[in-house]
């Protein structure tokens, strides 16, 4: 049986634990053993230790990576930042032996070490590569019944591709999420701004109006080109923007439509038979139509 270290980060366990429930559910259904990463901390977020120094970044990430290494597992995360930050830290640790040495000096003070053997996976690449389209197809309990999905992979899941364990053939034309959704019976067309940033992250914290305006631009295009039943998101931070951020735009009367949004982990869990109440517990845009469509045709 395959095993994976579940790296939670911050936004998933504290803001959107319905994603945590969903990841746990789909891993169980797909026969992957979950190894808990006791004591794991923040990835750490780009605006924290990475903005203080390369060594500070590498050291804080290596704390997490060393927990997985000790348990002999790779890590899986549903958050784009956790994926980007820790893969980039890994990349720097490999590239700069002097940093690796200093990191280990610091870790050594608390009896830990990191050799550099752990890979960090996101939900997209894990499902695509470790599980595979065929197995996913076989395991589906509820076909998506032609549910039309707008796809958001998320910046940190795409770039810098050289730091990642696995990557899209063309990162500026991502297809993996589209293929996964189609394998579950949905429809997931390409659209012109598929790789555009949703505006969540530092921009949202430091220039909230500009962030929401950028998001609206993207959402309007999705509405116009696809008019989807659901947006499916590969990153928990993007999901906060597509769900709670969209609610803000509605409140501010900046848009007059509503497109529900789920993380790929949530959609996959539902298709595998998860309890919908738990898998979507924190969604702010109502999902009723979507669930009826998925559960209706079986």
């Amino acid at each position, binding site marked *: 049986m395959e095993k994976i270290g579940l790296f939670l980060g911050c936004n998933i366990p*504290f803001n959107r*634990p319905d994603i945590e429930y969903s990841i746990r559910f789909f891993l169980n259904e797909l026969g992957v053993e979950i190894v*808990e990463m006791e004591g794991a901390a923040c990835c750490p977020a780009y605006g924290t230790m990475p903005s203080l120094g390369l060594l500070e970044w590498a050291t804080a990430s290596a704390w997490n990576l060393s927990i997985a290494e000790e348990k002999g597992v790779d890590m899986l995360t549903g958050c784009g930042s956790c994926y980007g930050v820790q893969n980039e830290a890994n990349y720097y640790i490999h590239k700069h032996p002097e940093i690796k040495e200093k990191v280990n000096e*610091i870790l050594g003070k608390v009896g830990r070490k990191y050799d550099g053997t752990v890979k960090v996976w996101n939900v997209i690449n894990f499902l695509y590569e470790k599980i595979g389209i065929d197995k996913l197809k076989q395991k589906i309990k509820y076909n998506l019944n032609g549910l039309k999905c707008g796809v958001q992979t998320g910046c*940190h899941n795409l770039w*810098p591709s050289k730091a990642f364990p696995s990557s899209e053939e063309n990162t500026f034309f991502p297809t993996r999420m589209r293929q996964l959704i189609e394998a579950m019976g949905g429809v997931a067309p390409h659209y012109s701004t598929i790789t555009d940033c949703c505006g969540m992250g530092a921009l949202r914290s430091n220039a909230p109006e*500009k962030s929401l*305006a950028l998001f609206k631009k993207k959402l309007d295009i999705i509405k116009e080109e696809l008019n989807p039943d659901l947006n499916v998101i590969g990153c928990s931070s993007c999901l906060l923007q597509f769900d709670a951020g969209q609610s803000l735009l509605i409140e501010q009367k900046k848009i007059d439509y509503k497109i529900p949004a789920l993380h790929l982990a949530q959609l996959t869990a539902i298709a595998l038979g998860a309890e919908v109440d738990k898998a979507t517990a924190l969604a702010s845009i109502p999902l009723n139509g979507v669930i009826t469509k998925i559960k209706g045709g079986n």
Partner: protein
Amino acid sequence: MEEGGVNVIDLTQADESFVKELEALGADELRECIQCGKCGATCPMALAGLEFFIKRLVHAANLGLREVLLDDSSVWGCQSCNRCVEICPMDIKPYEVIQAIRRAAVKVESCPANTYEGLRNLYRFGHAVFPKGFEERRKKAGLPEKPPTALSFEDLRKKYQEILRNTILEEIAPFPLD
């Protein structure tokens, strides 16, 4: 300098020592930039309308315009998306130039207040993002009140804090590390 951007570059402000400082802080390929503008063409900060264009930022960094760069707030709006790193033909890693500027700015306390909030949460709880009311949200998703992270293990959190104290955080944190 016009508000929020560098529209006229004042060469008398150029400071070679600042270029060296940025190189040492991670912008190690900075000098190879050919000002092709590809980074800017793909940057969401430009799309969102932040004043300081990444191509110009790299230019200003190459000239060592210390004051301009340390005062600039755009660097803190960078999404860390790494599109620029992916696309740069010279492998400058423009995002690392941004990070180097941030690292220089933090040393002279020229960063937004929310930077410290994230660092404080990270140190105290092991989580930079630590929103109130999470116990209730976790219950709704059928999960135990606390996740099995550093938050739940005081002994491990203490070790994590010790490694953080062995970094520059010890020097720059405007809050007690005990």
